């Protein structure tokens, strides 16, 4: 069984990394193949409780190859034991889930100890050892639920239930509960657990390791394990047997590992799994606050980078968008009179019409759809392959511009018409009037709107994930999925968003009061005037003073 949600996030992320720098190639070729005594084991280092990443070597964690982090979990414990028994030097290689089999086939790693179930498809690609774990299917309920005392799946009749999307838990196991009220599948293990915690469902179906891990995070859950009971789910071994894989034909290693496994039985496995889960529970601290610290410790840099990307796109696009918005808003607020030359009026009419279409279209359609059309469509229609970065800036700017145009049109209309007349009366052209008199006053009045827009942009960049931009929200979903720490990760990201937006809004508020200028003025003294004019002689007659 596999957390597909996580896979998706990580694989897209990984693909993006490859795309950018081809690091994987470099990485793969870096490995020297002469160290005969080394036992290279590939795993994801992010599929608790089988394997996970931690920032220190607590609980016997093993350093990850070419990284400052450590790996731990059931797989790592098993890998250490196998390496010990076979007298090999263990090296843990962290790989994307989708890269595991290719890495094994290419010889990058010697074996995969990665919580893989022995599906027929995989069997064609690799050779499996004997199972090193049996992941039986269990039910999780709230301890205070009326189903907590169930003795078999028929006692769960009429319960509302869910499980994870695209898993055999949901597709095959769940429907076996009689008269079950099967609700829609949850996208990830973490949302599934959150739904149970929120009592949106009576129970969830999952496997034992996941359930045990969940207990570490949710103390109020209870596991219902009907193993050995006839009134249980009927699931094939293929799905529940978890085994180690080696390169096809590498019988030598396979046999060696099998001899090690032969020394253990199911009880040993369960004991080791409990050990791993308790290590995980001890790694993932008990209290909410400490978990947040733990996540920040391990993933702080990812959050930072995501926040950086988000802020970069939001800031640049807001500025560009404001410029576009001012240009469009000013043109749209240009008055036409019957007395202007006909050419000017026609031209202005056409320009205004085009700008109107621009504003209405981009304001009126979701940015996500626009992003897809522009990014994919530019290539399909015009054969113009724009970069992901260019597309991101372009899309957000052009959207901000459309919104700002309306804001600015409104802002201009709300300035006292006397200001325009004052400017016209001293001979300013329309453009000069706008630049020196109207826009500065509009700008001050719409600063709260600009601040709103910047904040919207900070948050809305998340839709850019459809074209592969790795911004803050995208990063967070990945982390939440990897650690089952749904509320914790989102609390962190909410805090980060809040800090970003709050800082921006405070800076803009400060700008507002700065633009308002001081509440009082200083009277110019003789000296100042003499100094500023260089010529002027201030007359100090009492009459002048009295004015």
């Amino acid at each position, binding site marked *: 069984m596999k957390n597909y949600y996580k896979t998706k996030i990580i694989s897209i992320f990984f693909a993006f990394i490859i795309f950018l720098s081809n690091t994987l190639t470099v990485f793969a070729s870096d490995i020297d193949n002469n160290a005969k005594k080394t036992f290279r084991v590939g795993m994801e280092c992010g599929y608790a409780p089988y394997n996970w990443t931690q920032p220190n070597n607590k609980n016997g964690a093993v350093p990850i190859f070419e990284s400052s982090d450590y790996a731990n979990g059931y797989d790592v414990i098993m890998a250490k034991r196998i390496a010990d028994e076979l007298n090999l030097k263990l090296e843990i290689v962290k790989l994307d889930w989708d890269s595991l089999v290719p890495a094994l086939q290419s010889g990058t790693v010697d074996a995969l100890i990665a919580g893989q179930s022995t599906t027929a498809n995989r069997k064609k690609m690799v050779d499996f050892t004997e199972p090193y774990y049996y992941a039986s299917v269990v039910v999780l309920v709230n301890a205070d639920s009326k189903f907590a005392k169930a003795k078999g799946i028929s006692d769960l009749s009429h319960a509302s239930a869910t499980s994870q999307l695209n898993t055999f838990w949901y597709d095959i196991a769940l429907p076996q509960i009689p008269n079950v009220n099967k609700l829609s599948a949850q996208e990830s293990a973490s949302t599934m657990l959150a739904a149970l915690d929120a009592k949106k469902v009576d129970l969830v179906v999952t496997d034992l390791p996941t359930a045990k891990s969940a207990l570490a995070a949710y103390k109020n859950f209870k596991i219902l394990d009907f193993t050995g009971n006839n009134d249980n789910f009927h699931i094939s071994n293929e799905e529940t047997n978890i085994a180690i894989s080696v390169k096809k034909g590498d019988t030598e290693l396979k046999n060696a590992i099998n001899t090690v496994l032969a020394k253990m039985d199911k009880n040993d496995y369960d004991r080791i799994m409990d050990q791993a889960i308790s290590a995980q529970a001890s790694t993932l601290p008990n209290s909410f606050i400490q978990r947040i610290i733990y996540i920040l410790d391990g993933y702080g840099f990812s959050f930072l980078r995501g926040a950086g990307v988000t802020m970069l796109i939001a800031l640049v696009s807001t500025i560009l968008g404001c410029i576009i918005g001012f240009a469009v808003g000013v043109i749209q607020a240009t008055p036409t*009179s*019957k*007395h*202007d*030359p006909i050419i000017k009026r026609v031209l202005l009419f056409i320009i205004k019409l085009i700008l109107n279409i621009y504003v209405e279209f981009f304001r009126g359609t979701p940015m996500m759809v626009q992003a897809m059309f522009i990014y994919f469509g530019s290539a399909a229609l015009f054969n113009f392959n724009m970069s992901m970065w260019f597309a991101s800036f372009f899309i957000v700017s052009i959207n901000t511009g459309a919104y700002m145009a309306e804001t600015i049109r409104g802002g201009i209309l709300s300035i*006292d018409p*006397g*200001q325009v*007349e*004052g*400017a*016209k*009366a*001293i*001979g*300013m*052209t329309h453009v*000069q009037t706008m630049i*020196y*008199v109207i826009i*500065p*006053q509009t700008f*001050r009045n719409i600063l709260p709107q600009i601040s709103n827009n910047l904040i919207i942009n900070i948050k809305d960049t998340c839709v850019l994930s459809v074209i592969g931009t790795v911004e803050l929200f995208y990063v967070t979903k990945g982390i939440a999925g990897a650690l089952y720490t749904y509320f914790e990760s989102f609390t962190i990201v909410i805090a980060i968003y809040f800090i970003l937006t709050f800082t921006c809004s405070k800076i803009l508020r400060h700008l507002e009061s700065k633009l308002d*200028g001081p509440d*009082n*003025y*200083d*009277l*110019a*003294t003789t000296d100042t*005037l003499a100094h*500023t*004019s*260089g*010529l*002027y002689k*201030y*007359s100090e007659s009492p*009459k*002048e003073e009295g*004015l």
Partner: protein
Amino acid sequence: MDNNTENNIVLEIKHLSKTFGKNPILKDINFNVHKSDVTCIIGSSGSGKSTLLRCINLLEFPTSGEILYNGDEITSNKTNEASYRSKVGMVFQNFNLFNNMTILQNCMIGQIKVLKKDVETSKKNAIYYLEKVGMAPYINAKPRQLSGGQKQRIAIARALAMEPDVLLFDEPTSALDPQMVNDVLNVMKKLANEGLTMIIVTHEMAFAKDVANNIIFMANGFIVEEGHPSEIFVNPKNPLTKDFLGRFINNE
């Protein structure tokens, strides 16, 4: 200053009329303004004086009629409104100072951006005129921090600093005390001598009498009477004029 020939005509208003919606405001206005003339327009509230000035400045577009400036028809499509207005300035009844600028900037911006003067010259010039209206110490204030009379004087200084050929004043002394009115009067007289042409809408008959060499009396959107102050104020011909000037003439 009375012996103006036809060549000296700066502004010529011909059959000008203006309608707002269904309400006719100006009806067949005709008059000429010669170089260095000081024309005062008087009349009751709502008689269309401000509207007339705004038409001359092209802030309102006349419904019909012609306005000729130095012989050129300015209501035609070809007029460059901005450059025309840089020669024909205006002081508004409600001042219209730029709220986003200090007093000094209010008086400099036009010189710099429209007349393309450099900053130093503009500053000297601005302070020169501000001093004339007694507002030099307030150069750092913002319009919202000033009293009504102070704003009015800034508005005058701003228009003067543009050194236009013609200046239209809409009640330039309404917020000023008698002493200050006197000072402004002196400034205007001096400017008139230097060749500035002025059209002044005013309610201060004494002021009009002192400064003007031509008085136009308006009522109900018509020009009822026009003439030299010595005629109008002493021997008004039209009964409306007589009625209007009654209080002033009695006070004299």
